[in-house]
């Protein structure tokens, strides 16, 4: 059985969306902050899934693109008084540009070398932001306003409105990615993942396709960064630290890589767990670490894979029962 089977995807997606809408409208301020955080990191995790799950490029540097999106948004709105609606496209463009330049270098590499050089790029962004006083250095930057939607009679400073806005962004990203993965281009990416040399032999411009995926992924990571700057109004270089990329990769694995829905599930589980655990014990990262090891070692296909396996179990048992019944 394949863990990337998409049959159940629409149902899981609708359930998640309904859950998010109901939860957001019934919970209070804190709940909506967490919901927005989940939606934003889900966008980021989907971006990573495009390169890691589909094209087979395990990036450990996506926190760099994420932070760049956040800092571009913060700098343009705070220093130059730009409206957020104008800053967001530039944040996306900036992150896409960095991803493009990085991509030119990294698409030649595979395996651990790919992982290491993406890590280096992310850390380059981190050490630049950490030392540069213009952007507040290690103190970070504050004061980023939220997207102004008063045209539509919506006040985004209301936690419910903002969390629903981030959920809407996540939905759009998800739908775009699903359409993309079903296009011939998406199939080519999966082909490259499975057998790069064969795809090259078939005349597929492998490096160009990988570069395009990496750039698109960076752009979406920039969008997530732009939103995270608006979430709390405060950003710091920690956003670009390499452990953020590592945790992100774990969120993708926890949910199920190469499905786009899996990363959303994984993000929701990991972030909720983190908040629950950190309110219970000071040593929450110890528990998270053990959870991560267990998931990576034992749960192939992640949580979405688990759902698939459950369905397979129920479904095939029913069919076997009827077959057995006909025989007697």
């Amino acid at each position: 059985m394949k863990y990337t089977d998409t049959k159940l995807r629409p149902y899981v997606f609708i359930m998640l969306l309904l859950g998010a809408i109901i939860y957001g409208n019934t919970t209070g301020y804190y709940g909506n902050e967490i919901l927005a955080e989940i939606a934003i990191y889900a966008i980021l995790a989907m971006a990573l899934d495009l390169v890691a799950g589909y094209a087979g490029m395990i990036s450990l540097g996506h926190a760099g693109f994420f932070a760049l999106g956040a800092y571009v948004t913060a700098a343009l709105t705070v220093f130059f008084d730009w409206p957020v609606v104008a800053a967001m496209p530039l944040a996306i463009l900036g992150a896409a540009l960095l991803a493009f330049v990085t991509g030119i270098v990294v698409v030649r590499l595979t395996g651990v070398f790919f992982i290491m050089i993406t890590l280096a790029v992310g850390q380059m962004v981190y050490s630049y932001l950490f030392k540069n006083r213009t952007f507040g250095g290690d103190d970070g930057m504050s004061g980023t306003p939220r997207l102004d939607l008063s045209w539509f009679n919506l006040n985004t400073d209301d936690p419910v409105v903002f969390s629903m806005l981030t959920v809407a962004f996540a939905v759009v990203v998800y739908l775009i990615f699903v359409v993309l993965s079903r296009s011939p281009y998406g199939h080519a990416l999966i082909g490259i993942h499975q057998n790069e040399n064969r795809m090259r032999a078939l005349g597929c411009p492998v490096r160009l396709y990988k570069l395009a995926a990496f750039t698109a992924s960076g752009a979406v990571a920039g969008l997530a960064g732009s939103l995270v700057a608006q979430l709390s109004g405060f950003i710091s270089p920690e956003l670009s630290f390499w452990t953020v990329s590592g945790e992100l990769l774990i969120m993708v694995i926890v949910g199920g890589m190469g499905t786009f829905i899996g990363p959303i599930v994984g993000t929701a589980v990991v972030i909720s767990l983190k908040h629950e655990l950190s309110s219970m014990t000071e040593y929450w990262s110890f528990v998270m670490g053990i959870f991560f090891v267990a998931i990576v070692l034992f749960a192939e296909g992640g949580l979405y894979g688990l759902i698939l396996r459950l369905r397979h179990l129920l479904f095939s048992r029913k069919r076997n029962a009827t077959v057995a019944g006909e025989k007697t």
Partner: protein
Amino acid sequence: MFDLPFLIVQLLNGLQLSMLLFLLAVGLSVVFGLMNFINLAHGTLYMFGAYFAVSVAKMSGSYWGAFLLAPIGVALIGAVFYKTILVRMQQDQPMKQVLVTFAMIFIGFDAVRMIWGNFPEVVPTPDIFSGSTTIFGETYPVYRLFIIGLGLAVMLLLYLGLERTRIGAIVRAGVDDPDTVVTLGINVRRVFFWVFCLGCYLAGLAGVVAAPVFSVFPGMDMATLILALIVVIVGGPGSLKGAVLGSLIIGMVDTFGQVLIPGFASVIIYALMALILLTRPHGLVSVRTSA
């Protein structure tokens, strides 16, 4: 500013950092070369080495007790880690291995906080090396010279071990072409295990040696881990010469970078690594002849 004594002091500082990086990176590098496995928890082992040194030095009242015992403790942790988890993952893709060892960083970080607490600890410099000496008119701490000497000694021992002994030949052959080594009737797994433990021992040793110079705190592993990884990648995984070359380059660039262009030193290191990977995708010293 650019007079001779200044340059010599910085050169010694760079050399000292290089030796620490070498102790860390050589285990990482040879394990990577042998098993195609990158251990992100290597920095955590370094941190454990430093903390064991704190405890042993307190209990025995002597730095040398820590110097002897702490690395062995770290090697034991490495052995348990290998036998319980790594042995299951030999056939997995690099991503899984990276993630499991990544999760070990979290576990190790909190384990240290649980056992030793959140506050920085210090290990006193051993008495015989506690003073300073004069080099070209500049005073320089003797202990740092001891680190340089120790690093050079380990380099020499490893070189002799790898080049002049039977086990060294097996290790070199294992990096080059593990399948053929297996066909020759050699138990490669057992060699892997001992090499892994030796790498952990050296990481622990780096922690013990670094403890009197830097402060010991939870999270001290992070910055060092990244530098050690860069050394491995720049030098070329699996090669002793590569680890030597890589640690000298990175140690020197980091030291001189911090002094000459503060704020950009780390950016330069990452850029240097990207440049080297662009021109030599498998590091400066590429050992693997078979694909």
